[in-house]
């Protein structure tokens, strides 16, 4: 038995695909939010730094180095830092040096190594910040600082910077959020997919199990039908209907095979016996000729039976051949004309009431054969002096053909039975026939979507073939 592995179920794969897709989309949208926000923050920081640097340069131009030095020293105090911290993204960093880069004032203790003092230069530094207040010391942590350098008239160098700590913290938080979101989507998708896929796999497994048993030969096996009216329930019901039909067909095939074997054995036995008798010593040529002639009759009988079986099988196979608009009046008149002579020869009264203008979609040969078989039976089973009739009318629907006789009829409990192949009433065994006549009529009726009914004619049998309007199968 083949178990369906969860990972290979379509539902699971779909769920995984969607989870992956959503994760990707989430990551993309969060990345774009991140990119927009950080560039916004950076340009805000740069704008702030530019304004501050310009204000300080202006102050220097108006008031000189001493005031600038004092101002920077003031801004580097705890209070100023705290105030500037309130509205901004982080504490500002300052450094004012003389032309030889000796610090004059500011939060930095020395000019950062590796940075050439150039006018209007934007740089990003990694610094260990020194604060005037030990409480604000970064504790040895290196901070990333965005800064702008100015060269003032007189060769003084000014650096105004801002720690990017806040941005980095925000960025880390954002990254964590993104990862959490993706992880959540993936886990939810995985769980959902596993749940749904497992459900589907479980239900399909029931079908697979049933199919395995059926393939192993147990045709009575059925797929468990769930009461749920979803697509799986519908599928199970449909498959079960199909299986029932297949089982029924298999059974009927088996029954037919057995019946064929049985019905052919008797004439074959007869044939063989006759041939053996003809070979016995003491038989003259005349007797041998007679035996051969009877043998040929036996063979003809066997062939007729085989042909009838094949015809029924072919009709039951359902393929519609030579399908045309059939003039039922013409078919019935032909049949009446053909069988009337036979009936009269046997001393039966034959009456026909055939309505004109009735048409049915179908196979003329098959309908004619069905009517012929009904008339043939009626004539065969009705004793001399009786009467048979053929009626074509349309009380409701396109056409109803009725054949009646005054023979022995068929007992109620046998009426369904006689439609089966090879079933013959005990009383009729002495009459010629292969027990396939009514089976063929039934097959033709089914083929045309018509109904065959057998009723009591008081006395006799009343067989009706009712063609319906939409004779679709």
């Amino acid at each position, binding site marked *: 038995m083949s178990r369906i592995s969860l990972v290979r179920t379509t539902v699971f794969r779909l769920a995984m695909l969607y989870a992956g897709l959503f994760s990707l989309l989430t990551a993309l949208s969060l990345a774009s939010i991140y990119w927009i926000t950080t560039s916004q923050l950076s340009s805000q920081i740069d704008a702030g730094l530019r304004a501050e640097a310009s204000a300080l340069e202006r102050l220097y131009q108006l008031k000189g180095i001493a005031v600038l030095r004092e101002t920077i020293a003031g801004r580097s105090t705890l209070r100023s830092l705290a105030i500037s911290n309130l509205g901004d993204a982080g504490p500002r960093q300052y450094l004012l040096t003389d032309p030889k880069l000796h610090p004059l004032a500011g939060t930095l203790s020395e000019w950062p190594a590796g940075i050439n003092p150039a006018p209007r230069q934007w740089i990003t530094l990694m610094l260990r910040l020194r604060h005037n207040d030990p409480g604000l010391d970064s504790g040895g942590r290196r901070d990333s600082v965005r800064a702008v350098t100015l060269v003032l008239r007189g060769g003084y160098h000014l650096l105004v910077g801002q720690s990017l700590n806040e941005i980095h913290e925000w960025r880390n938080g954002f990254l964590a959020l993104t990862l959490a979101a993706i992880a959540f989507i993936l886990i939810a998708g995985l769980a959902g997919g596993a749940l749904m896929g497992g459900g589907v796999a479980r239900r399909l497994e029931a079908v697979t199990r049933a199919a395995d048993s059926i393939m192993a030969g147990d045709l009575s096996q059925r797929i468990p039908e769930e009461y749920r009216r979803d697509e799986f329930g519908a599928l199970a019901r449909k498959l079960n209907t199909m299986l029932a039909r297949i089982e029924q067909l298999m059974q009927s095939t088996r029954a037919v095979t057995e019946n064929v074997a049985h019905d052919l054995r008797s004439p074959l036995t007869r044939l063989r016996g006759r041939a053996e008798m003809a070979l016995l010593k003491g038989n003259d040529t005349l007797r041998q000729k007679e035996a051969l002639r009877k043998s*040929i009759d036996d063979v003809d009988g066997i062939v007729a039976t085989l*042909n009838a079986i094949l015809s029924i099988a*072919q009709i039951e196979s359902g393929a519609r*051949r030579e399908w045309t608009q059939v003039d039922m009046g013409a078919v019935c008149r*032909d049949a009446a004309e053909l069988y009337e002579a*036979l009936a009269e020869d046997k001393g039966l009264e034959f009456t026909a009431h055939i309505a004109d203008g009735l048409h049915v979609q179908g196979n003329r040969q098959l309908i*004619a*054969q069905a009517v012929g078989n009904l008339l043939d039976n009626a004539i065969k089973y009705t004793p001399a002096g009786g009467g048979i009739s053929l009626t074509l009318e349309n009380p409701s629907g396109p056409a109803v053909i009725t054949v009646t006789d005054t023979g022995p009829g068929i007992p109620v409990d046998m009426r369904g039975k006689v439609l089966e192949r090879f079933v013959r009433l005990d009383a009729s065994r002495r009459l*010629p026939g292969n027990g396939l006549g009514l089976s063929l009529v039934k097959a033709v009726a089914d083929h045309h979507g018509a109904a065959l009914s057998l009723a009591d004619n008081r006395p006799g049998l009343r067989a009706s073939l009712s063609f319906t309007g939409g004779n679709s199968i």
Partner: protein
Amino acid sequence: MRLLLIEDDTETANYLIKGLRESGHVTTHAASGPDGLRAATDSQYDALIVDRMLPGLDGLSVVRELRSAGNDTPVLFLTALSEVDDRVMGLHSGGDDYLAKPFAFAELLARVEAIVRRRSKQPADAVLRVSDLELDRLKRSVKRDGKPIPLQAREFRLLEYLMLHTGQVVTRTMLLEHVWGYHFDPQTNVIDVHMSRLRSKIDKPSAQPLIRTVRGTGYCMHEPD
């Protein structure tokens, strides 16, 4: 008649050839489709008897090729398949008649003679005559020894068919097919009843009988000896 039998089953072929020769027909045998096609192309025959299932090239294809090459020799198909649409297909591909296996040899002979006659016959006369029996196809009247005989429509067609095949055996299935248009075998031999009625009208006890029963096969309309 010169006949070509294309049949791969040796046993069937032998028995058919023997029967056909005894009936006075010169018969050539081919055991495969290509051989049969070659034989049919190389010389002239009055009729071909072609099995549907043949090695190399099946019967339908053989006849189709012959027909497309302009050869219109009458063809009788033999088949082990007795299905209706096989008959239709056989006739569509250019066959003239169709016979399902197993068959009575007399049936085969009757059908071969019928297709050859049908082909060679000029547009039939309006009046058919056998001895003193006269059938007028236009007036739809029948006279025997100058005296009119009233017939029902079907009896007229039955007699017409018999007279068109005067001197030939006509089988019951041929009558069913051509007079009633039925391609199935009714369980009882209804044809016999109709034939006996027709004979009672045509062959009055006083007159010379013209319709002869061929035992186990059918009937034959013939000139009195």
